[in-house]
């Protein structure tokens, strides 16, 4: 360990020499890695936005329970209390006929004039139940069995479709993350092998002088990690520019969707990309220096 600390300056110098020695090839590797990581950053952003949407929708998951005709208001309020005790129910509230009318009038907006065609209020009283989306099936089953409940209306189809989209996005994200990981590892380990080949005489001399593998290999690990970090920084820079310029426009077009705050998301994704790049660089370099061990 003492030797390691004594030689930090040397390791950094050697790493920079390795980088400079094959600068053009390394520059292209950094750009390639940066673009791949940029792609990963885009997927992570999409993933994050998708998750935020689903979480928001999950919080807003509501079902409506309609009464049988012969039920009194008192019995209806008792049912509200019963529903409130079911596991997975966040909140339950009684919506009387007048409130149901107003709600639908608001929802129809400019089309609300159509309601004037009805002599009586066409809407029924119901119980508005806010639930946890994950408990939706169990809650609906329990509510449907309650005495006095005619039927339960849910927006399960829409929620399930949204969940499906987000799940697909997650799978695509994992696949892209895997592809990015493997590609980066290949690029970096190839780059390191190239560096080792270029310095094979020096490596051989160091061995003959008794240098341990760690001493010989560490500058290459450092070089690989630094190059991938540069790629990560490039990706983070591109993502930052793109998100700063494009995010407001996108959320403006889709203003009815609850997008996460741009700054927070941008900072998180950029930081994650840089951490991933350092990790991939380190692992890729480790793969790369296996060629040292083989030739030793």
């Amino acid at each position, binding site marked *: 360990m003492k030797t390691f600390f004594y030689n930090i300056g*040397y390791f950094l110098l050697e790493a920079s020499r390795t980088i400079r020695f094959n600068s053009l090839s390394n520059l292209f590797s950094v750009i390639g890695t940066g673009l791949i990581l940029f792609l990963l950053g885009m997927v992570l952003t999409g993933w994050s936005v998708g998750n935020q949407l689903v979480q928001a929708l999950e919080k807003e998951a509501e079902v409506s329970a309609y009464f049988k005709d012969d039920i009194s208001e008192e019995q209806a309020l008792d049912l509200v209390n019963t529903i409130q005790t079911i596991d997975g129910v966040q909140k339950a509230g009684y919506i009387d006929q007048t409130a149901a009318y107003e709600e639908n009038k608001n929802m129809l907006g400019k089309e609300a004039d159509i309601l004037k065609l009805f002599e009586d209020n066409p809407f029924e009283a119901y119980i508005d139940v806010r639930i946890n989306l994950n408990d939706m099936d169990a809650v609906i089953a329990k509510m449907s069995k309650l005495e006095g409940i005619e039927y339960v209306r849910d927006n399960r189809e829409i929620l399930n479709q949204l969940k499906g989209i987000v799940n697909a996005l997650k799978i695509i994200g994992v696949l892209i993350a895997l592809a990015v990981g493997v590609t980066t590892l290949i690029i970096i380990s190839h780059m390191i092998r190239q560096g080792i080949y270029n310095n094979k005489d*020096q490596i051989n001399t160091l*061995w003959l002088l008794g240098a341990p593998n760690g001493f010989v290999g560490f500058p290459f690990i450092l070089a690989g990690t630094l190059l991938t970090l540069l790629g990560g920084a490039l990706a983070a820079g591109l993502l930052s520019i793109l998100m700063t310029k494009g995010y407001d426009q996108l959320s403006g077009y889709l203003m009815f969707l609850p997008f996460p705050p741009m700054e927070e998301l941008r900072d998180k994704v950029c930081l994650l990309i840089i951490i991933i790049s350092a990790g991939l660089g380190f692992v890729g370099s480790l793969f790369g220096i296996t060629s040292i061990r083989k030739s030793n």
Partner: protein
Amino acid sequence: MIEAKDVSLIYQDGTVALKNINIEIKPGEMVYITGPSGSGKTSLLKLLMGMEYPTSGSLKVLGQTMKRGKGGRVRKLRKRIGPIFQEFKLIERRTALENVMMGMRFLGISPRKMKAEAISALKRVGLEHKIKAKVDHLSWGEAQRVAIARAVARKPVLLLADEPTGNLDQDNALNILHILNSFCDSNTAVVITTHATHLIENQENATYIRVKQGEISIERRGQSL
């Protein structure tokens, strides 16, 4: 320090480099290995450095049995050896000082001490004015002296030098032999292969190993031997 019993070295192509040699070298001993080109001098030195392994027989260097499959231990052993290679094996695009320090970096020496020892070693070989010169720009003889400085700066217990005077004029060659000889006083065994028999033939207190077609004859001179 070095103990070889019936050691033979046969290369993969069938060339017999060394045949049943027996050597014992003690701490502080000065050993010259001489012989014509292709006689097996460098092969013997390569065996001692762990660059080759005996095909048969037993070889121990600094207590370590030298055989294939013990690479890790042999590498550790090399830290205690000061090798001087015939082709120098200096690291290109580095200064003389950097090259000398490179040989010491993994020995656990503090950077300040390392630099001081490296400068001192370069002064000993008469290269104090070339400390910051890139080794690529040095003459053949100067490069050889950097290689020697790199070996001696490590303060090894065993110095192995392959033709260390091969590219030097007589004065520099004698100076280098004198420097290498001086290590014997601090109990370092020094093993040198050389063609330059005229420089060493009158030396007392030394062992002469003459190699001819893979076989050796040993002549010991001096009271300690």
